[in-house]
Structure formats: C-alpha cells, structure tokens
C-alpha cells in the first residue's frame, strides 16, 4: 500500500515535470492591470538620491523624476529652459537665469533664487566630487541672487559647453535649501525636488516607489505611481516583462533580444548610447610611449570583426573617441586599416622586431574579457605576447590611477551632449591619472582641447573637434572598440517612451494605449 503510494507520487511528479518542460510559453492574457502605475525593471538600485553624492546611471535615472535643473535638453538635444524661464548670456563669462515663478518643491516651499544659489554652491563643495567635473567651470564666488527670481553665475573661463553641462542630471539639479539643511546626512534617502514625482518609499536593493506630484509646474504624468525595481539578473528582467509584471525592462541582454522581438505583446527599442569602450595604452610606459607601437597594435586588430563576434549584433564598432549621438562626432572618420605586415614593419622600426610581452587589464565584464582574449590571439601574429588580467572594479580603478597598467579595456561615457565632455577629461594632459588613464598628453592636442572649450558653437568649433578626432586616431592612445547600445523592452501598450543615449530615461511622458 505504502509502496504504491510512493510510486503514484513519483509518477505524478515526473508527469508534472515533463509537462512543465514540454509546454510552450503559456499565453498570458496581457492587459494593463493597473493603469495608474508604471513599473520599470532596472539593473541596479540607485546609490543615493542626493544629486551631488553620486554620478551613477541608476541614481540619475531616479533623480530625473524627482528634480529639475535650470536648463534641460529638448527633443532635438537643444538646451532650453527648465526651472529657468529665460537665460541671458551677459558677456563671455556671465550668465543670468530668470526663474519661473510659483514653482513648488515637494515639501510645499516655493522655489526661490536662494535655493538655486545654495544648490550651485553645494555642487561645488569638496564633498560633491562626484559631479565636480561637470560643474567645475563655475566660479564659486560669483554665484549671486540678484532678486528672488534671478541668479547670476560666472564661469572661470569662456566655456562653450557651460549650458549643456548644466543639463547634467546630477550636477545641475536644484535642491530645496531648507530640506537639505534639515535632513543633514539623511538627505540622500529623503530627497526634495521640484520634479513630476516625489519619493514615497524606498526599499533599498528592491524597489523605489514614487507618486505623482500634484503641484508640478510642468505637464503632469498620465499615471499616478512610478515603481522602479532593481533586478540584476538579465534573464529575470526579460521574464518579468514577458509575464507582464513590469511595463518596461532596461538592458535586455543579448541572449534575450530575439525572444523579446518574437513576442507580439512586446516591443524592443534600441539606440546606440554615448559610451565608448576602448583599449587604452599606458603612454608613459615603454614600449607604449612610442606612437609606432600603438599604431602597430591598432593595425593588428581587426576591430569591427572582433566586435561583431563578441557583441553578436549589439552596439556598433566605434570609429572615434566621440560617440555618434554626441555633437560634432565625425561619422566619416576612417579607422586605421587592418594590416599585419605594416604593423610588423612599424614594430621593427620602433625597435621591437621580435615583439614584446605585455598585459591587458579588464574588469569582469564579459564582453571586455572576450575582446581581450581575441586581441591576445591576434597580437601573437606580430609577436606581442599578451597576458590578460581580470580585476575587480575597485582594484582596477586603483591600479589605473597608480599607473601600474600596460594596456587596459574600459569605457568612457559622455554625460553631457557636448563633445568637450567626451574628449577633454580622457585626453588633456592636466587630467592624467584622473580620467586620463592613458596618461596621454601632447601640446597640440591640449591646445585643441582648450580651444574647443572656449570657441562658440558653429562651424569653427566643429572643425576643432574634427581635428581632435583626427589627431587622436593618428596618435592612437586608444584603440576605439565599440559604442554600447541601450536595448529596452516594453509592453506593446506603452506609449510615449523614448530611449536616451545617456542610459537613463524620462518616464514621466509614458502613457498606456487604450487603457
């Protein structure tokens, strides 16, 4: 009797298991359960909601809905007023912002010029190092409130990229002075902004719940509650999307792209973003201090093929240091041709006819390790023996800062729409060991970079950045690898969602079709 029971039970389990494995995806009736809530699956949780305390994509994505800046980008990537109704450039250095009247913070306070002065000064304080490279051009002593609704700011030098850089989510955010002072160290968990949503609940590592701010000065969102969940496992994000538990899922992994595409109830959105992944050389260390060696290695790598093999259709091979969606990126820049013989000749000319040994550093990102592995094989052809070292991010950064590396693979993201951000920090000699991890710097490039900053927008400025891109391609501190891609899956009924090349996206315009 008992044995029979066990057998029956086993048979049942086996049947259930095989039925489960054989059955296709069950048809899940897709209807928007709650038209007042938008649920988004992100990869990471925000670090903090203090805009000057961090500069990571997840935090910026959340803050985008809580705060406003003085200026913002419109659909055509032009700088337009946000909290500032009007912007006036008084002279080369001086900018005057006229604030909108009647703008309310989430705590009920009205936006005053004093809040703007407070925010700008705070963004320049030492503890705000995370955004200092964005707003560093502001002269800290020059920020004054002319009256309750007018603020005047001077830059330290004539800076063409000043207004674009003020559109940066973190650096440009305007905070409420009273709220910051009252919350003290707890401010990062209790943000107060003027944005379309206010934070109501933050379950760290899990989800963030925001509610529509009814006193928002701009166009109010069509739905009431915004939930941003952190789901680190890529497959889980896709599954949650497929099962209808989330409306939008960020960073669909390469494996899942075709699954989302094939599903009629889902949409897949793709956009090349502003990041550039590169293989950099330590240009102050032999043999990489020799431009011929750098060129030889660049020539010995069939980069587009490598990228194709590694990324399997995601992203695009990078042609230069400026990502394609950033202003003045030169789409016609010719990459250095793949030529092993010429590479060998260049190496011999530089005094390394038999090649040499070196290492490539990378962090644990799979695509980077794969690229390093292929590069290792390719470089054998010109006698360069490469040893790959995979480092954990903290150790990696420290090693780079201390100039212990030979070659390394890492990415750089242009966080403003201006090319200055794309090239000044990683190539100017004053930035060595800071963001310039190749320790590259020559007078000519320095001069061009400095000129680019101060030249007003127009054909002349475009030429400067074209020259910079040419020079960098020729002198080769970077082997340009690829520009990454934002791949986002949404439910079919999600409308009004646009992908941003910055990697974080405005959710306040989303509406639900027919619901």
């Amino acid at each position, binding site marked *: 009797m008992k*044995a029979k029971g066990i057998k029956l039970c086993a048979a049942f389990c086996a049947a259930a298991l095989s039925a489960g494995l054989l059955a296709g995806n*069950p048809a899940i009736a897709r209807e928007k359960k709650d038209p007042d809530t938008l649920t988004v699956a992100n990869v990471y949780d925000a670090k903090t909601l203090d805009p000057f305390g961090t500069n990571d994509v997840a935090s910026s994505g959340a803050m985008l809905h809580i705060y406003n800046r003085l200026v913002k980008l419109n659909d055509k990537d032009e700088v337009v007023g946000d909290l500032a109704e009007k912007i006036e450039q008084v002279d080369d250095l001086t900018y005057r912002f006229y604030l909108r009247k009647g703008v309310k913070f989430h705590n009920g306070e009205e936006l005053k010029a004093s809040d703007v002065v407070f925010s700008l000064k705070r963004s320049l304080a030492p503890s705000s190092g995370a955004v200092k*490279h964005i707003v560093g051009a502001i002269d800290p002593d020059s920020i004054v409130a002319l009256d309750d609704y007018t603020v005047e700011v001077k830059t330290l030098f004539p800076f063409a990229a000043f207004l674009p850089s003020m559109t940066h989510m973190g650096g440009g955010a305007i905070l409420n002075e009273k709220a910051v002072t009252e919350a003290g160290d707890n401010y990062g968990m209790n943000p107060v902004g003027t944005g379309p949503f206010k934070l109501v609940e933050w*379950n760290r*590592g899990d989800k963030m719940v925001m509610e529509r701010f009814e006193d928002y000065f701009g166009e109010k969102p069509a739905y009431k509650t915004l939930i941003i969940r952190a789901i680190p496992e890529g497959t889980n994000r896709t599954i949650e999307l497929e099962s209808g538990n989330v409306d939008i899922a960020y960073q669909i992994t390469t494996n899942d792209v075709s699954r989302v595409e094939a599903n009629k109830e889902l949409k897949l959105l793709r956009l090349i973003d502003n990041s550039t992944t590169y293989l950099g050389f330590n240009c102050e260390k032999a043999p990489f201090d020799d431009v011929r060696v750098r060129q030889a290695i660049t020539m010995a790598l069939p980069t587009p093929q490598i990228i194709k093999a590694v990324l399997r259709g995601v992203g695009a091979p990078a042609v230069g240091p400026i990502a394609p969606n950033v202003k003045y990126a030169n789409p016609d820049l010719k990459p250095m041709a793949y030529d092993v013989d010429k590479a060998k000749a260049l190496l011999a000319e530089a005094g390394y006819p038999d090649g040499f040994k070196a290492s490539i550093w990378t962090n644990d990102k799979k695509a980077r390790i794969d690229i390093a592995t292929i590069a290792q094989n390719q470089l054998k052809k010109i006698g360069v023996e490469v040893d790959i070292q995979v480092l954990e991010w903290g150790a990696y950064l420290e090693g780079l800062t201390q100039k212990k590396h030979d070659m390394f693979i890492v990415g750089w993201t242009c966080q403003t729409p201006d090319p200055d951000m794309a090239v000044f920090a990683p190539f100017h000699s004053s930035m060595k060991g800071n963001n310039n991890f190749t320790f590259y710097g020559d007078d000519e490039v320095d001069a061009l970079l400095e000129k680019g900053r101060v030249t007003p927008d127009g054909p002349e400025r475009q030429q400067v950045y074209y020259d910079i891109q040419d020079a960098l391609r020729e002198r080769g501190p970077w082997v340009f690898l690829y520009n990454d891609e934002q791949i986002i899956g949404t439910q079919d009924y999600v409308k009004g969602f646009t992908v941003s090349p910055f990697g974080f996206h405005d959710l306040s315009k989303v509406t639900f079709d027919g619901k």
Partner: protein
Amino acid sequence: MFKYIFKRVLMLVPVLIGVTFIVFSMLYITPGDPARMVLGEQAPQESVDELRQEMGLNDPFFVQFGRYVYKAVVHGDIGRSYITKRPVVQEIWAAFPVTLKLSAMAMIIAMIVGIPCGIVSAIKQYSLFDNVVTVFAMIGISMPVFWLGILLILLFSVRLGWVPPSGFDSVSTMILPALTLGAQSVAIITRMTRSSMLEVIRQDYIRTVRAKGQRERVVIWKHALGNALIPVITISGIQFGILLGGAVLTELIFSIPGVGRLMVESIKMRDFPVVQGGVLFIAVAFCVVNLLVDLVYAWLDPRIKAQYVS
C-alpha cells in the same frame, strides 16, 4: 542554567573582537579606494583626497581600528554607510527581516522534508525509498545553488508561469528562493536523521523495548525519535546559521534585497562600514542561533543539562 547562558554570552566578546579585527584588516588591505568609489571614477583627485581625509582613511591602521572599536563599544555606533550616509545598523536592519524570512522558510522546508525522509529511510534501510532518498540527497548536496535556482525559475516561472521569478513580497515569490536555499539543508538533514536514527535503533534499550513486546510505532516514535533528533537539532542550528550568512547567491539570483545582497553590493562599492557591520551582525546571529540550539539541546537531553545544573 543561567550561569551557562551567561558564560555563552560572555564568550561572544572574544569572538566579536576577533571577527572585527580580521574583517577590518582584510578590508584595510583590499585594493580600491573607498573615497574614489564613493565619488566615481570621474571625480577629480582633489575631491577624492579631501574625502579620504574626511573619512579618516589616511590614519594608520591601528588608529582607525581603535576608533572603530571605541565608537562601537562606547557609543554603540558602528558607523554610517559611505554611500547612503545612513547608519549601518539601519541599513542592516532593513535587509535582515528579508534574509531571516528566507532562511526560516528554507529551514522549515528542510526540516519538514528532511526529518521524515530520514526516519523512513532509516527504518526501511536499503529499500527502494531509501535508495531514492539517498540519490536525491546526493544531488541536493552537490548541486550548486545558482544552477538549481535558474532551473527552478525556468520551470516554474518561464514554462509554467506559476510564480514570478523575482521579488520578495508575497508567499508565491518566496517559494522558489526558499526551495533553492533549502535544497542543501534538506539533503544534509535527511542524511543526518537517517544515520542518527540507524544508530539509535540498534541500541540495547531499543532492543529491550522491542523484547518487551512494544508495538513498532511506539518503539520508533516514543523511544527512538527523541534521542535520534538530538544531533539533528545541532546540525539544523548550524545549518540555519549558515543559511543566514550564506543566502547571498539565492538573494542575487532572485533579486531579493536581503543581507547577502547588501553585503555583495557594499563590497563592490567599498562601503567598508556596511561590510564590517554586516559581518559582525552575521557573526552575532550565528552565535545566538547556536546558543539557542544548545539550550534546546540541553532541554532535550537531560545528560547535558546535568553538566551545567550542578
């Protein structure tokens, strides 16, 4: 008995000091600058240097360690997170109930499944059931957690659509993680119950009971089980402690915001105070669980109690 408890609590002190020292020194020699991690790779070096100074990272090791211990002992303050600026205690306290719930569910599954299976296996040694259980236990012990977790997600979330693959706010979302986390414990407890039971039913007193003509059911449930369970309780306690500290992989696979995931994220971001606090916390939890186990043990087995009561 109180003396025993007191002694055990007192023993916590050297354990905590040891743990603190080891973790503190390991974090100290870990490459990667916390100030740099806080500010991001794009922050200028001056800001990083200033922040290092502010965080006290430039002080010698023993000064930093002394300051930490002093604050912890005198003020009960184990620091604030570098990243969120929240007190570490709060950070851990927010994540702990989740881990506790997960571990407790896993443990309950392990005991509900493991103990009966072990008993039946022992009684019917070398039967088909025993063999099947042995095979499953071997699989349970040797299957990596992440693999099992992904298989379960594939079957129950993707194929069958019965439960959501991530989150942790309803019973349906907790089942898979609890199964995943509990699988190994099920196996261990099953094996332990089986061997302990086998040992007990071969004892002389069991033979005596049987010889007196007692029914088999009474022999097993009344005379054998109590004694057989004593080592099982011990191993369950240790398992529970391990689950509390070791739920990391399960939490990562299922996106559960527990202590394990908090620790991994904090290590990645070099958020030393949280890592330090988390390890201390797990150490304390482990010790407390063990203390409770020993108390239950003493309660179950009068011989042990006798050692302390005199």
